[in-house]
């Protein structure tokens, strides 16, 4: 299992645990917590997307003999951008700071597009 896959899955598990805490705080009266969109995106972006991208990077067909998993720098960039964007979202929705939400939108968009571009070359027949 390549390093970026290990880190994606670890990050995903950590964010899944965070999502469960946020979800519990939403149903315990008086415990405050993050708004519902934060909870939803912790699960879909933080957990599911990290898991999917990490496993796809590991398991999809080889890009070439020289670079079996393609340019791994793209995978690292996608992982970093996506998770930095998600953290910005959590901050921006906790303390309404408009600039943080714009930064989050940009970082997550670049992260997803980077992962999609990286995986695109690996989606092919034998």
């Amino acid at each position: 299992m390549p390093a970026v896959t290990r880190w994606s899955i670890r990050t995903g598990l950590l964010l899944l645990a965070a999502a469960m805490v946020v979800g519990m705080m939403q149903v315990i009266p008086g415990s405050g917590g993050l708004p519902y969109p934060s909870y939803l995106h912790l699960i879909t972006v933080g957990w599911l997307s990290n898991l999917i991208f990490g496993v796809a990077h590991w398991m999809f067909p080889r890009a070439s003999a020289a670079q079996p998993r393609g340019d791994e720098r793209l995978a690292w960039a996608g992982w970093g951008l996506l998770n930095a964007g998600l953290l910005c979202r959590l901050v921006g929705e906790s303390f309404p700071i408009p600039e943080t939400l714009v930064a989050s939108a940009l970082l997550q968009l670049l992260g997803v597009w980077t992962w999609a571009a990286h995986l695109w070359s690996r989606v092919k027949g034998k």
Partner: protein
Amino acid sequence: MPSLSVWSVRASLTWLAVGALMGALILARVPLGHPEWGAWIPAHAEIMLMGWMVQLAFGVAHWILPRQPTAEGRGLLAPVVAVVVLLNVGVVLVVTGHLMVGRTLETVAALGFALQGIPRIRASGWGATGKEGDLVRLKKRVEMV
């Protein structure tokens, strides 16, 4: 990866790129001065759930589930092509506001996927059956490694 999975996974990545752009605009709608973009949330959710995640699962499952011991190891091609086409047309229709027709097509696609996939959900590979001969082969393989 079979060609149908290639098309299905590429279509899912395309929906992902579109859905992410839509999501970014929704998230930044207030600072950008367009609060009305919040109306796109249901379309964003539909694209990300059905266009991206469900379709990715369909494509990868078609590729990776055990093949049947027949000439058409992954089943007949036409029904699986129909599943992918119906799913994508369904997502387009739901996103453009044709909810009833779109959801109907998505439902037919999901049923079609389940019907053609169920026969492939079976014990396969080293140690998968748990029977004596299979376990002996598994043990030999582990020892080789």
